[in-house]
């Protein structure tokens, strides 16, 4: 069986996996990191977004073996000791979540887009959210949270 060695939230991981095992399943089933959600399993909804070597990807559309040697960050790896990540704090402040199912993917996507763009206007944020769906249709609060977090990050 193929073996995969990677770093997840700073921890070294070495697992024997079937070639078909998805990164989302490695994270959830093997490592019990269930903050990464699987909504559609067809790369539409974005609930499963994690960072692979610093880039936002849909972990339901990556094989675990493709992450060989990579650094993976999940929603569990974002916050520091006892403090929310600034994007997480902005989601709480601006009512960026309702049922919460899409939230891990929204936040991982937001961190990636803020790193690339810095401060953003609402149109840019909505365009960048193209790969993330909120089944509560709570986009207004999500966009407000990302807008605020992006301004804070840009100083």
């Amino acid at each position, binding site marked *: 069986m*193929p073996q995969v060695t990677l770093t997840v939230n700073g921890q070294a991981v070495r697992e024997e996996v*079937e*070639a*078909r095992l*998805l990164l989302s399943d490695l994270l959830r089933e093997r490592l019990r990191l269930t903050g990464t959600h699987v909504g559609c*399993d*067809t*790369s539409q909804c*974005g609930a499963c*977004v994690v960072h*692979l070597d610093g*880039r*936002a*990807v*849909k972990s339901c*559309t*990556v*094989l675990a*073996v*493709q992450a*060989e040697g990579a650094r993976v960050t999940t929603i569990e790896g974002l916050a520091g000791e006892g403090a929310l990540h600034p994007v997480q704090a902005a989601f709480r402040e601006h009512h960026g979540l309702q049922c919460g199912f899409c939230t891990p993917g929204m936040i991982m*996507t937001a961190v*990636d*887009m803020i790193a690339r763009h810095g401060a953003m206007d609402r149109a840019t944020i909505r365009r*960048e959210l*193209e*790969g993330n769906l909120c089944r509560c249709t709570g986009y207004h609060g999500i966009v407000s949270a990302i807008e605020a977090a992006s301004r804070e990050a840009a100083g």
Partner: protein
Amino acid sequence: MPDFAYIRARTIAEAVEALSADPQARALSGGQTLIPSIKQRLAQPSALVDLGAIAALRGIAREEAHLRVGAGMRHAEVAADAGVRALAPGLAALAGLIGDPQVRNLGTLGGSIATNDPAADYPAACLALDAEIETSARRLPAEAFFTGFFETALAPGEIVTAVRFTCPRAGAYAKHRSPASGYALTGVFVALLEAGPRVAVTGAGPGVFRWAEAERRLAEGFTADALEGLVPPADDFLSDLHASAAYRAQLVAVMARRALAGAIAGSRG
């Protein structure tokens, strides 16, 4: 998802050897089409040969009047590359319109053109920018590479290694996307090369094609009103739940005019 063997190739030669040894094996690049296809049982490969670790498939280089883009370059990398943005801004913009941000972080140029989805964006850039496709075995012009519905000239065991795009005097891409999938209902790339104008259409027919009548009009004058009133015949166009053939023909006309306007606005003189 059915299981398969997995081979991580380190060199182009290793990949070719593994793919040649097993006719049911498939090359895996970014996986953004292939993995969903395996999930849906549209593809059932015996083995996946992962090209992701092959350094020779990476990189973007200027070669006189051409841009050579490695087959393993991801859409987001092409969209953000300073050289591509300066020398072929329409190509950079096209790469930035593929799929969604997460797909662009994994999907690759080589994977896109080797799949040759009739609604893929890159094939339009290849035809409009008179690209040469480099493979593990040969070089061939884009027009000989794209042979039909999900079909290319690639032989078993042959992989795309790079694409050499001609830097245009002017060029832009306009796309009407399906709001659900992000794929092009129609996309048109209009370019003015040293050798003349080119108009390439994706999403409308069973495969990417050049729109000869539009090119003839633009050869008479690469001006904003050159395509007024021109609509392609819808005879061979796709008709499905997203759009009828006649609607696609109308969209081709509109996208071509928008791409022309974009090309003129962004022209480097």
